[in-house]
């Protein structure tokens, strides 16, 4: 198990370095950053001055190395637009996003897994139909639209919840539901399919032949095997939620990291975009790593992989 974790950790590091290089170089492919910074009316000399000021005239590898080493120390430079250290800017915005992402994935898992299990126990029953309806609706409904409906009903008509902002926990209820409901269908369907599959297997029959009760059969013997693909899926979705909840963040005016990314791209705020891409990718890498470790704990056959 330990060798497995170390191997995966090494792999994760390699991926992280590759991703950091790609994210750094991508921005150079998108045009001359100096020209973009200087603005449309700038003269050639101004652009040249900016190029030297920000160090764009040096070889790319040198720039990359410098950027990476300062990034490792937590220094991502200064935002062109906000004129603030990028690190503190992101850290600030990330709190909102992380809280939202965490609540979202928890909401998704806590609704999807029980529903998926219940649907698998009684296929084609009322609860299975309900689960299918919920998942189809969730997959078909755009997040922004669902968010707006919630605002109209829960915030404006009923007045139960604040429509936007991020100051209290009540502000997070609707965004959590919207974001969680977006991730829920896939997790639910995968849990259901996994459980249906596992419940047919010989070792479940063995468990029953041992005299194990139905609850024990379902949760100890079946779910542990059925949940393995769900873990991987949830990790990817968690990564997506942290980086890609731009729509939800805009609808509910939660100024999180996703929203910051969108702003920074629009403003050509290079250091911020670079740092955000790096941070988002790191999240993916970390969650994938955690999912691998969790899966190896769940299924011993994966430990030798």
């Amino acid at each position, binding site marked *: 198990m330990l060798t497995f974790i170390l191997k995966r950790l090494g792999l994760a590091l390699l991926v992280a370095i590759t991703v950091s290089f790609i994210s750094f170089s991508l921005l150079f492919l998108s045009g001359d950053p100096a020209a973009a910074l200087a603005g449309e009316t700038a003269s050639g000399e101004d652009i040249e001055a900016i190029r030297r000021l920000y160090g764009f005239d040096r070889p790319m590898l040198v720039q990359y190395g410098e950027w990476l080493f300062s990034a490792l120390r937590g220094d991502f430079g200064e935002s062109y637009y906000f004129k603030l250290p990028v690190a503190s800017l992101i850290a600030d915005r990330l709190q909102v996003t992380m809280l939202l992402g965490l609540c979202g994935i928890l909401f998704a898992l806590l609704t999807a897994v029980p529903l998926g299990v219940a649907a698998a126990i009684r296929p084609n029953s009322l609860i299975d139909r309900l689960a299918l309806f919920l998942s189809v609706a969730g997959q078909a409904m755009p997040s922004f639209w669902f968010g707006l409906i919630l605002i109209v009903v829960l915030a404006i008509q009923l007045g139960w919840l604040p429509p936007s902002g991020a100051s209290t926990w009540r502000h997070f209820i609707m965004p959590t539901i919207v974001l969680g409901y977006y991730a829920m269908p896939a997790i639910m369907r995968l849990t259901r399919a996994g459980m249906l599959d596992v419940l047919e*297997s*010989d*070792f479940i*029959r*063995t*468990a*029953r*032949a*041992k*005299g*194990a*009760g139905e609850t024990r059969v379902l949760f100890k*013997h079946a779910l*542990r*095997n059925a949940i393995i693909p769900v873990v991987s899926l949830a990790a990817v979705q968690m990564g997506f939620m942290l980086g890609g909840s731009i729509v939800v963040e805009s609808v509910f005016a939660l100024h999180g990291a996703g929203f910051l990314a969108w702003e920074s791209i629009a403003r050509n705020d290079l250091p911020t975009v670079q740092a955000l891409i790096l941070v988002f990718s790191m999240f993916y890498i970390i969650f994938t790593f955690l999912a691998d470790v969790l899966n190896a704990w*769940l*299924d*011993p*056959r994966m430990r030798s992989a």
Partner: protein
Amino acid sequence: MTTPLLSVKNLNLTIPTGSGTLHAVRGIDFDLHRGETLSIVGESGSGKSLTSLALMGLLGKSIARQADEMNFDGVDLLAANRRVMRDLRGNRIAMIFQEPMTSLNPAYTIGDQLTETLLLHRKVSKAVARARAIELLEKVGITAAESRLSQYPHQLSGGLRQRVMIALALMCEPDLLIADEPTTALDVTIQAQILRLLVDLTREMNMAMILITHDLGVVARVADKVAVMYAGELVETGPAQEVFATPSHPYTRGLLRCIPQPGKTERGAPLGTIPGVVPSLIGEVSGCVFRTRCPHAQVACRAEIPQHGTASHGFRCVYDDGALSEEGELA
């Protein structure tokens, strides 16, 4: 005569299908005493496994079970609720399955899975359960038993896994062991070992065993009683030696001609086959089910079939000698 440990009378299993009711198992009767081995022999799909699952109360939801009597050591299995059945399963009636490769849970260690059975049924400590698991692993011939406890199923070979399954079934010292084709998935060399082991253990622990198989060679070696099953019915039952020496039902004789017999079958001589296929069991089934493949079939075979023979060795056929006299002429 003592009361049997297990007594089954007129067991019927039906499965509703899109094109009518499938009468998978019909009118099964048998008794089993402690220390006896009953072998149920038959082709694939003859209802052997369903019969054993019916005893365990592990049939799928769609399969309907009816019987005049199903009594296990004073417990009426027909009336038993889930709680009662759960207490019996793994504890007093244990089962070994055909597929050792997939019958163990891949996510738990051998030790976890072995001790679980004992912990479910007995109020014992984990240490006691572990000790019992080690004892049984040694008993089924697994070396380095203690270190096996922390291994996972995928780290063991098929033969070892089947030994683990046997140890698992024996954890609570059951009164009845049902072995459903326990050696089918194994190498021929391992098959004999596993069978020997099962027989020795049933003697040692004074268990009754139902051995389900399609392999007559297996039956000849280990069974006390044989029940020959064809298309959901028991066509012939009796003491193993008698059935092999004087097979009465045409199907039993047909089966025996399919296997080479040392000393009797000549080298290079063709082995027998039974032409035809098993009839469909959907809808009403009447008369002799074997008549479509029987060389001696006649019109009377469509009607009710009488039971012949003695109480211990019986068979169902319109001929009171099972058409044995006719067969002599054919041969």
